[in-house]
């Protein structure tokens, strides 16, 4: 019985949260990797672009709520996502036309484009702060829990409860759907294949008649979908605070690089690698060992490797280790 309790404890505090956090990172990481593979620069504005899209979803959710529109048990934000995606894509295409296109045509080196993206980061961040402000916003409504801790305890008669939030299930389900559609698109459609070809060998793609402007436009559109959905799912699960989105850029970049930059499937798995690593290392295992060890061996510390305040240090360390020992990532990078 103690053994089952220990497993439930891990499920409740590590596995379920890491799966949903990993999904959110995965969407961001695929965004980073697509831009890197096709536009060939590291987009430092990733986090703030995600907060830009989410901001629209938040505003629209409030608007829908004021009109009395709701989705019942599901969060109203789901209804706002398509409109937010449109706004996000428009913003990205405008930024591309006004800023990135100039450097792309000039064939600037990737480092210069990365610096340019930092400029975009500041502008985007400022716009978000002007429109919605820097504060913590909650926009979740509907049914919060699918499974509550006491219900689970009553059902099973165990000491440990298992909580499953609806946002966690929603995150995982939506991510799987979005990522499946994306991989289907990249591997089965003519446009998707031409994007992979362009990422693989730009010169030959041009000789084959692939239109670079169309490839770039579609890349931004996909990026807009990923950024908005990833951002909204994160905001529903936790809350919407622009600064947190900016901070999330580190684990997102770590995920993209761990998976092999330019490789969308790698980025997808990389998201979970980073999420599990962060949570495994910062979890306090005291209770877990109390269940498993005899009373005499009971630990008197928290049995925590690293305080949760340092969770970004975990992503950062993984990033550095991967770059030092396997710069192409776990999966072969630079291939789309």
């Amino acid at each position, binding site marked *: 019985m103690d053994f089952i309790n220990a497993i439930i404890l891990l499920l409740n505090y590590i596995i379920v949260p890491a799966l949903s956090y990993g999904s959110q990172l995965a969407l961001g990481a695929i965004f980073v990797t697509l831009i890197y593979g096709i536009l060939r620069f590291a987009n430092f504005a990733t986090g703030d672009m995600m907060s830009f899209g989410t901001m629209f979803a938040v505003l629209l959710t409030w608007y829908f709520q004021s009109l009395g529109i709701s989705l019942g048990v599901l969060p109203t934000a789901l209804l706002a996502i398509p409109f937010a995606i449109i706004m996000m894509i428009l913003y990205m295409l405008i930024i591309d036309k006004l800023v990135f296109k100039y450097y792309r045509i000039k064939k600037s080196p990737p480092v210069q484009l990365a610096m340019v993206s930092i400029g975009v980061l500041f502008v985007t961040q400022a716009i978000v702060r002007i429109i919605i402000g820097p504060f913590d916003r909650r926009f979740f409504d509907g049914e919060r829990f699918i499974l509550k801790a006491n219900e689970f305890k009553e059902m099973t008669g165990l000491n440990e409860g298992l909580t499953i939030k609806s946002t966690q299930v929603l995150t995982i389900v939506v991510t799987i759907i979005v990522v499946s559609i994306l991989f289907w698109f990249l591997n089965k459609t003519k446009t998707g294949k031409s994007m992979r070809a362009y990422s693989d060998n730009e010169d030959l793609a041009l*000789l*084959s008649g*692939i239109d670079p402007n169309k490839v770039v436009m579609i890349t931004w559109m996909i990026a807009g979908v990923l950024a908005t959905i990833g951002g909204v799912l994160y905001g529903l699960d936790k809350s919407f605070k622009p600064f947190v989105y900016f901070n999330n850029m580190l684990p997102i970049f770590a995920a993209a690089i761990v998976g092999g930059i330019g490789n969308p499937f790698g980025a997808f798995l990389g998201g979970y690698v980073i999420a599990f690593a962060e949570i495994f290392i910062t979890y306090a295992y005291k209770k877990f060992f109390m269940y498993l060890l005899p009373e005499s061996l009971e630990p008197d510390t928290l049995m925590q490797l690293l305080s949760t305040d340092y969770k970004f240090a975990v992503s950062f360390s993984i990033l550095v280790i991967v770059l030092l020992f396997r710069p192409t990532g776990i999966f072969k990078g630079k291939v789309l």
Partner: protein
Amino acid sequence: MAFFEGKGMTGGYGGPDIITSCTINVDQGEIVAILGPNGAGKSTAMKAMLGLLELKSGIVTIGGKDISKLSPQDRVKQGISFVPQTRNVFTGLTVRENLEMGAFLRNEDLEKIINEIYELFPILNEKKSQFVGELSGGQRQQVALGRALMTKPSVLMLDEPTAGVSPIVMDELFNHILKVKKTNVAIIMVEQNAKQALSISDRGYVLVTGENKFEGSGKELLNDPEVRRSFLGA
């Protein structure tokens, strides 16, 4: 007048001229080899015909039509296909996807053309679902040829198709090129392996410092004592 012709081409990559009043032409169903020592401007002459560099003077025509002002992409639409020396395949795509990308601009049913390519290069059919990055050098060259043929070109330009492959594979590739010739395609190739290239070519050009030095049928060039001494190493 030849089917595809670059006449009096002069130009370079922005700096000094690499080719000066260089003339190369080819007819359909003919193989023409461009030979010459290193740095003679062989590849440059070919790239000029594709439009990869701006010419100071000279014109390029296909079927009597002046295409000197067209971009490389537009020349591809005119039926010219080019196989670069390096990076001539999409390594992260499968063999079949490479062929599909070759025919990106064609909208009709690809199955028929792809099957024709498979008939020409049976190994590609065998490996169609494999990533090109996993294939051998000779097989990759066949993918590159196949990709270029997907547009049903009337002119095929090959930049050192046998660079870095073993002699056995080289013979095999030349056989494939002969098969392509039989489909009434005009073929221009730049080659380092001069003797072998001339043995399958109808005509050859020898360039020296960007100018036409010798030209003639493959046999004539092979037997010309001066050409033999300077470029064929015998």
